[in-house]
């Protein structure tokens, strides 16, 4: 847990709406190290989704810097951003995560195909990862033949299989029941730690924070508080801190 995989420096993102300027992200700075799992929390409209979109190289910031594995997003053209997303970032979304006409195995392997790394060893690694996520019996199932939880686990496998520097998860538990949600986030956290990746999860469900190393709390586009103490984080997760 020593290398900085992701660094955000004085990040600003503003939008114009009906003539007014809205500061969705307001001078935010933080770092996430390899092997660290961080939660980005906050109420609706706090700027966490905008922040995630910028970190995913899907949205250009108004000012400030985002460095992923030392590469500055602001210095990149669209082609370089696509390459960065493919090689350095793993992504799980809230819904519509998987390609519906690819099986669980094919969805995971697609990331390897994209990066030109699909060989026998990589295939084996992909199957092992899916087995680790409890999907050994579901390799050939299409997304429509799997539950929401199983789909999310396939998405997690896809986000990790190509060894990205940063793994981003946007509300991955939004469509899951509590038990499944805990399972998914716990497995996610374990894999982040084991594989030494930098993980960021955006969630509105504070209970999920019990599995993370740090919590970044946003409000009105600002980073208002950082929870680093495990005891505090657990209290936040239990709802004793608001």
């Amino acid at each position, binding site marked *: 847990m020593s290398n900085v995989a992701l660094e955000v420096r004085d990040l600003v993102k503003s939008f114009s709406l009906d003539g007014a300027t809205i500061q969705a992200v307001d001078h935010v700075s933080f770092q996430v190290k390899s092997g660290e799992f961080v939660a980005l929390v906050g109420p609706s409209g706090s700027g966490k989704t905008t922040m995630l*979109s910028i970190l*995913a190289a*899907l949205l250009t910031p108004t000012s400030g810097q985002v460095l992923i594995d030392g590469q500055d997003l602001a210095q990149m053209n669209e082609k370089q951003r696509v390459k960065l997303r*493919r090689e350095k970032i793993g*992504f799980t*979304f809230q819904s519509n995560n998987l*390609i519906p*006409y690819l099986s669980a195995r*094919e969805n995971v392997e697609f990331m390897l195909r*994209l990066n030109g790394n699909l060989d026998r060893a990589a295939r084996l690694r992909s199957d092992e990862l899916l087995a680790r996520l409890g999907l050994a019996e579901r390799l050939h199932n299409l997304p429509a033949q799997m539950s929401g939880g199983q789909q999310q686990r396939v998405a997690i496998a896809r986000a990790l299989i190509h060894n990205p520097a940063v793994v981003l998860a946007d509300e991955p538990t939004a469509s899951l029941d509590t038990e499944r949600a805990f399972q998914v986030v716990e497995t996610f956290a374990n894999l982040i730690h084991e594989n030494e990746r930098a993980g960021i999860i955006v969630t509105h469900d504070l209970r999920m924070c019990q599995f993370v190393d740090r919590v970044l709390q946003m409000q009105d586009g600002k980073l208002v508080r950082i929870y680093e103490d495990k005891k505090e984080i657990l209290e936040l997760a239990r709802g004793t801190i608001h």
Partner: protein
Amino acid sequence: MKSVSLATYLAVKEVIRNRGRFLLVALVIALITLLVLFIAALGEGLATGNRQYVANLDAQLIVFLEKSDYVITASRLETKTVKSIRRVEGVDDAGAIYTSNTEIVSLAEPLKVSMLGVEPGRPGMPTILEGREFRTGEARETVIDRNVALRSGIQVGDLIEIRSTQGTEDEFFELEVVGLVDGQSYFFQPTIFVPPATWEKIRPQSESELTSDTPFPSIIAVRLVEPSQTDVMSALLMEKVSNIEVTDIETTINNIPGYSAQQGTVQTQGIFTLLIGILVIGGFFQIQILQKVPQIGVLKAIGASNGVVGLSAVMQIILVTALGVGIGGGLTYLFSLGFPPTIPLTFNGERSLIAVILLLLIGPFGGMVSIIYAVRIEPLKALRLG
């Protein structure tokens, strides 16, 4: 190369996993193919039936009566004209062609045919496939088109009887079939060939024509020593021989009554069918892309380039179109086996090939809007993150 491989992988997987949906679209394309190919075959068949004899002439120029506007039925040349033409330098040979219609009545079902008077061994006389050429003079011999033989079962050596209206009376003439030729339809009818003197005797004629024994040719087919010199020789012939106008084979075909109008109609039908095809295919793929917006968003968000997404859409369209055209081609062939020879369908023409190429192009052309749409999808909006 990697993009092509990725795009192919995505396109093939999606088609295979949604084969029911894509098969339905392929079937729609197959039906359009069936229609377009039949229209093309009908056009080719009608054109062939109309022009085949003229198109296959062993000649480069056709001589008409002056001011006949290159219309065969309006042209009636003097008998001596053919000799004058043969004397012009640069003319290899010339053959007079006499045109009329008649009916073979010695069959269970009477068969209408074009009866052409031609001179053996000269331009206008087709190549004999079986048997021999007829003798000159008033020999009651005929060479028939294979199409006549196929329809009627007549063979070389058989006697046929034709009916001809002479003045106000119907008269019947017997002719011996001495040879077979191929591909000689004229004016939508299969053809029989007879010597000019015989033609003059047995052709349908009015009361006033009965007193004359001199056959007047409709046109003269001219074979040149130098086949490429059509323009020069055309001018030279008109200068040296009076009361004629000269043109090439193509102009002669285009001036066959109704030929251009008929071909124009058939081609317009074909073009409209292709346009309908473009709209149907374009509509389907546009709806499909709209349904796939979030999925394309995911692909782009995880690092698939616009090239991969666009190429995948193109390949899918090509795949489905090719499948549809293949099925349609097969169906067309099966249907064609059941059509009677009286329906003028010709499938082995240039038109069928052009139709297939156009059909293969309508997919990508129709799907162009959807392909552009797919490339322009922004992952952020598609994933509703923005």
